[in-house]
C-alpha cells in the first residue's frame, strides 16, 4: 500500500464519521414507534418556529385589531384583550419555547456531563466537595429558587430564564451520569486505555462518554422539558420580560385580562396545549434513546 492511498483512506474516514454517526443516531431513534411520533411533532414545531414570519397572518406585536375578538375569519383564534392576533402570537411564541428548551437543555446537560464524569472518574478529595455542592442543589426546592433568582435578576429577558433553568436543573443529571461513570470506570476496556497511555481526560471523554450516549440524550431531553415548563411557569408568574411574545407571556396576559371570565378560553387553552405537545414530543423521543449506545442494536439485530 502506498502513502497516498493510506492518506486518502484516513481523510475520507475523518470527513464522513460525524455525519454517519448523526445519521445512525437518527435511524436508531426513528426505528422506535413512539420516538417516531415524537420526532414528527418536534419537527413540526421546528418548522413553525423557522417559518413563523411566513405562516403568521399578522405581526405578533400588532395591537391595532378589535380587542377581545373570540374568533372570526380574519382572526382564526381571536384577538387578545390588548388587540393582538392570537394565532400570530402562538406561531411566534414557538420560537421562544423551542430556543429556551434547546439552549437551557444543552447547557444543563453540558454542566451535568462535565461535573458528573470528572466527579465519577476521579477518586480524590475534590469528589467530596463536589458531592456537597451537588447535594445542596438537589435538596433546594427548584421552584422557589427559580422565583427568587428571577425576581433578583428582574427583567433579564430570555437569557436570564435560561440561566435560572440551568442553575436549578443540572444536579440530577450530574448524579445519574456519575453513577454510570463509576460502573464503567472499573471495566477492563477503561483499564486497558490507561495502559495504552491515554490521559485521564481522554479516557473520560473518548472511552467512557460514548458508552453513555443514551443516558446523556435522556438527560438532555429531560432538561429540555424542564426548561420549557420552567420558562412557561416563570413567564406566567410575570417574572420574565412581559413584553416578549412567548407562550408563557400569553398565559400571563390571558390571566391578567381574566380570559376565562370573558369566555375567551382559547387564550389559555392554545398556548397550554402547545406547551404540553412540545414537552410530550421530547418525552416520546426519550423512548427511543436506548438504541443509541449499543452498536449491535443499531445494525438491526443480526444476532
Amino acid at each position, binding site marked *: *500500500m502506498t502513502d497516498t492511498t493510506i492518506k486518502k483512506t484516513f481523510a475520507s474516514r475523518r470527513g464522513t464519521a460525524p455525519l454517519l454517526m448523526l445519521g445512525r443516531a437518527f435511524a436508531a431513534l426513528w426505528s422506535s414507534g413512539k420516538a417516531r411520533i415524537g420526532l414528527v411533532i418536534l419537527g413540526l414545531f421546528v418548522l413553525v418556529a423557522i417559518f413563523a414570519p411566513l405562516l403568521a397572518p399578522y405581526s405578533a406585536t400588532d395591537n391595532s385589531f378589535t380587542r377581545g375578538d373570540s374568533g372570526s375569519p380574519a382572526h382564526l383564534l381571536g384577538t387578545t384583550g390588548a388587540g393582538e392576533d392570537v394565532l400570530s402570537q402562538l406561531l411566534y411564541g414557538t420560537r421562544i419555547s423551542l430556543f429556551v428548551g434547546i439552549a437551557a437543555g444543552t447547557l444543563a446537560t453540558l454542566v451535568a456531563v462535565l461535573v458528573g464524569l470528572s466527579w465519577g472518574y476521579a477518586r480524590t478529595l475534590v469528589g467530596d466537595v463536589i458531592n456537597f455542592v451537588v447535594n445542596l442543589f438537589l435538596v433546594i426546592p427548584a421552584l422557589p429558587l427559580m422565583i427568587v433568582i428571577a425576581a433578583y435578576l428582574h427583567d433579564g429577558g430570555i437569557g436570564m430564564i435560561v440561566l435560572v433553568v440551568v442553575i436549578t436543573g443540572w444536579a440530577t443529571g450530574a448524579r445519574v451520569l456519575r453513577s454510570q461513570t463509576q460502573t464503567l470506570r472499573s471495566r*477492563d476496556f477503561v483499564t*486497558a486505555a490507561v495502559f495504552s497511555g491515554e490521559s485521564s481526560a481522554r479516557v473520560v471523554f473518548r472511552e467512557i462518554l460514548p458508552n453513555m450516549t443514551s443516558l446523556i440524550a435522556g438527560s438532555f431531553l429531560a432538561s429540555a422539558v424542564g426548561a420549557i415548563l420552567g420558562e412557561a411557569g416563570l413567564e406566567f408568574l410575570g417574572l420574565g420580560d412581559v413584553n416578549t411574545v412567548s407562550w408563557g407571556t400569553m398565559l400571563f396576559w390571558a390571566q391578567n385580562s381574566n380570559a376565562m371570565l370573558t369566555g375567551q378560553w382559547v387564550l389559555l387553552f392554545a398556548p397550554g396545549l402547545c406547551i404540553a405537545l412540545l414537552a410530550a414530543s421530547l418525552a416520546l423521543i426519550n423512548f427511543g434513546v436506548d438504541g443509541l449506545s449499543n452498536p449491535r442494536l443499531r445494525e438491526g439485530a443480526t444476532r
Partner: protein
Amino acid sequence: MSLLSVRNLLSVRDLSVGYESPGAVAVPAVKGVSFELAQGEFVGLVGESGSGKSTLGLAITRLAKAPARITGGSILFDGTDIAALSAENLRSQRRGGFAMVPQSGMNSLNPVRTVRDHFYDIFRAHGHVSVHDRLTRARELVGKVELPATVLDRYPGELSGGMRQRATIALALSLEPRLMVFDEPTTALDVLVQQAVMATIRQLQKAENFTAVLISHDLGIVLETTQRVMVMHDGAIVEDAPSRDILLRPQHEYTRMLLSHYGDPRADVVSVPGIESRAPEAGSAATASRPTRSAREGRAALETLVVDGVSKVYPRPRRGEQPVTAVNDVSFSLEPGQSMALVGASGSGKSTIAKLITGVERPTSGSIVFGDLRVDAIRRRDLKRLHREVQMVFQDPYTALNPLHSVEYILTRPVLNYSTLRGADARRRVLELLDTVGLTPVEQFAAKLPHQLSGGQRQRVVIARALASDPQVIIADEPVSMLDVSLRAGVLALLENLRQTFGVSMLYITHDLLSARLVTDQIMVLNRGSVVESGETSSVLRNPRDEYTIRLLDAVPNPGRADVA
C-alpha cells in the same frame, strides 16, 4: 428389570431448532439431530461455543424461548411428543418428567428469597408434597446434594458459588425428574469446587438412577463422568459412542482435534497441536537465545522486575470481620525474556499481584522495583513510563475492548502515545501489529468493530494492543480461560512465539496447570496469598511437594485418567 433398562426414555428424531428474529434471516442452531436416551443412562453432550449444544438441551426440556423455535422433528419423552405439548400440559409434565440445571445456575436463585422459599414454591405449584411434609422433604433434598439443612434459612447471597450450584441441583431434583439436563454446571466455579460438585452429580445419578445429560465444552470432565458421549459440531451430532471408544478410538476428525488438546501436566513431555513440546530442561533455552531487538534502539536496556516481600491487606469488608490479606509476603524476580506462571485457585491472590506490579494498586508493605522505577510508591506521572514497559493482556476479551471503537482506533492510540510515529507511519505500525498477531487481511480487520470479531480474534487484538508500546513485560491474566479449547492453543502459541521473537518476559497468571506447563519455565503456586511452592515448571509439576499443588493437579480434568486408574 432388564426390559426396563433397555427402554428408551427419550427419543429425538430429526430435531431442528432455529433462531428467528424479525427482520433477519433465520439461523439454524440444531440441524436434524436424532438420538435415543435409555433409562438411567448418563450421557455427555460436548461441543464448542456456537455448536448448538445448549440450544439442544433447552429444546429437549422444552425451555427454549423465542427467538428460538423448534422448526422440525419430534421429541418423544416416554412415548409423548413433547415438542407439541401445550403450556399447561408441559407444566404438569415437569414433575416426574424432565428438569434442567441451567448454565448460570448459581445466579438463577432469587436474591431476596431464602432457599426454603424456593423449595416451597415448587411444592406449592405442583402440590405433590403435603404442607407438613414440606420441611422434611426440603431437608432431605439439600442433604442429597451434601448441603447442611441450615442453608434452607439462608439467602442466595450468603452462599458460595458452589453451594448455590448445589442448591439449584437440589431444586431440580425436587420434582423427582426422570431426565436431568446439566448445562455447564461447573463452568463458573473454581477448579477445586468444580471437582467436588461433579463428584456429587455422579453419586446422585447413581443413587437416584435418573437419566442425565451433561452439556459441557470440556471433553475432559465429560469423559470422566459419563458413559456415552455425543459430540456436537455446527448444529449436528458428529459422533455418538461410549466414552471409552471416544477416548481410545475417536472416529470423527473433530473429536480427535478436541482430544488432542488434553494432556497431563505431570507427564515428562507435554505438547498440544500448535505448541512445541517442552523438554524438561527447557528452562535455560529461552534465556540463552535472547534476540536483539532493533525496535528497542535508544530505549532503556532490558530490566528485571524485582518483587520483594510484598503484602497487600484490604480493610475489613464489614464491621466485626477480619481484614483480608490478599497477598502475604511474596518475593520473586522476573528476568528479561523469562516466562513465569503464577497459579492458584480463585482468591489465591494472583490477580492482586498483577494489580500491584502494574501500579494499579499499592502494596501494604514490601517493595516492587522495575529498573529505576519504584512501582510500590509510583507517582501518577510515572505511571505512563511504567505502562510503556509493563503491559497487560486481560482475561475477558469481551470486556477488554471498547465496543464503540474500531480495531484501528484501539491500536492507534498506544502507538501515538508511546512512539513518535504519526500519520501514515503510525497506521503502518498498526497494520504491522495486526499482522504480528495473525489477523490477516490486516486492512479488513483494522476497520472492524469488536462485536464483529470472535472471542479468539478479540483476544488477538488485546495482545496486539499490549505489544503496541513495545513493552518488556507482558502480564497475561488468564488469557485463554474464556476461549474455546481449539482457540486456546493458537493464542498460547502466539504468546510463546512473541516472547521468543521479541524477548518479552511474561508473567502468566492461570489456574490451568496444563497451559502453565506448556508456556512457562518458572512457576509459583499461590494459596491464600502465600507462595507454597516455586521452581522450574517442569520439575514442580512432575514432582509436586506441597499438598495444595497436588490437589490442584488432581483437579485437572483428564480424559485418560478414568481409564488409567
